[in-house]
């Protein structure tokens, strides 16, 4: 799984230090990790389950599971990648419990947007509009398709990782992705 948000060596060292202290039971260090990662965890949960209240419950449980599993974290993967996996698994558990939920549009809650080129305002405006339409289109996908698009096209998981996590075959994951992309393209065309 790729993580495109680069962090400096100093930040990495600080995070490793926090993880090591949290592994030894230091709850202040874990609180710092929670503060650092809670938005990412909540964002992923929100994209997977749609419903904001359910997403908050998922994020809470994922962070608690992370605390309990922390002694087993060996640093083979990045901490954010590891916590994403826990969040995805927790999302499936909660969704099974809660049944299907209607997705809620998420654009009004977006806090930090990826930068657009301010030198070309007309292009920037177009990109912002496309992003808004895209977020709405992703949110409108059926659950099974949205989950695959979120994990593959936004978070860069492989088909095998998605299939493994969702308990489906690689072929099923590919089919869902194809249907989702086709629907996204159609929705974007219609809303243009």
């Amino acid at each position: 799984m790729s993580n495109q948000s680069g962090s400096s060596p100093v930040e990495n060292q600080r995070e490793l230090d926090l993880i090591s202290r949290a592994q030894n039971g230091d709850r202040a260090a874990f609180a710092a990790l929670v503060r650092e990662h809670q938005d990412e965890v909540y964002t992923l949960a929100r994209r997977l389950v749609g419903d904001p209240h359910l997403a908050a419950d998922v994020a809470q449980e994922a962070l608690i599971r992370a605390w309990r599993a922390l002694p087993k974290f060996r640093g083979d993967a990045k901490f954010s990648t590891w916590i994403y996996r826990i969040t995805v698994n927790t999302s499936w558990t909660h969704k099974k419990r809660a049944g299907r939920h209607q997705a809620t549009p998420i654009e009004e809650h977006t806090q930090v947007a990826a930068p657009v080129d301010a030198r070309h305002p007309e292009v920037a405006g177009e990109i912002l509009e496309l992003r808004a339409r895209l977020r709405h289109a992703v949110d409108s996908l059926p659950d099974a398709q949205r989950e695959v698009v979120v994990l593959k096209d936004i978070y860069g998981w492989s088909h095998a990782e998605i299939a493994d996590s969702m308990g489906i075959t690689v072929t099923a994951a590919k089919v869902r992705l194809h249907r989702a992309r086709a629907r996204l393209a159609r929705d974007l065309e219609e809303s243009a």
Partner: protein
Amino acid sequence: MSVVCEMAAPFVANSAVDGGEVILPFRSHTAACLKCQARHAVMSRTARELVAMQDQRIAAPADLEWRVLSSLEGDLELARTWRTPVALSAAVLSMAAAIVIWRLRPRTS
């Protein structure tokens, strides 16, 4: 022509997202078909924007950190003060219950 476009669609989408070429049976069709090229362009742009969404954050509820940490408090509290005494008491009680049941069993003679 449109049937071929529909058959090529998933491969056009994959190529647009992954940045590779469309697979061989559809490559020449896609190169000549304006509809497929337009789809490719739309999908490439969509894919770029989807990737950019990874850096967009939705603010977590203000009380999330508090909820997590207070749950941990309960977790540790239970582990330290309750789990062992509860397990020991349950073991002692079940032993006592077994003795009482044995002593009070009906005897035939």
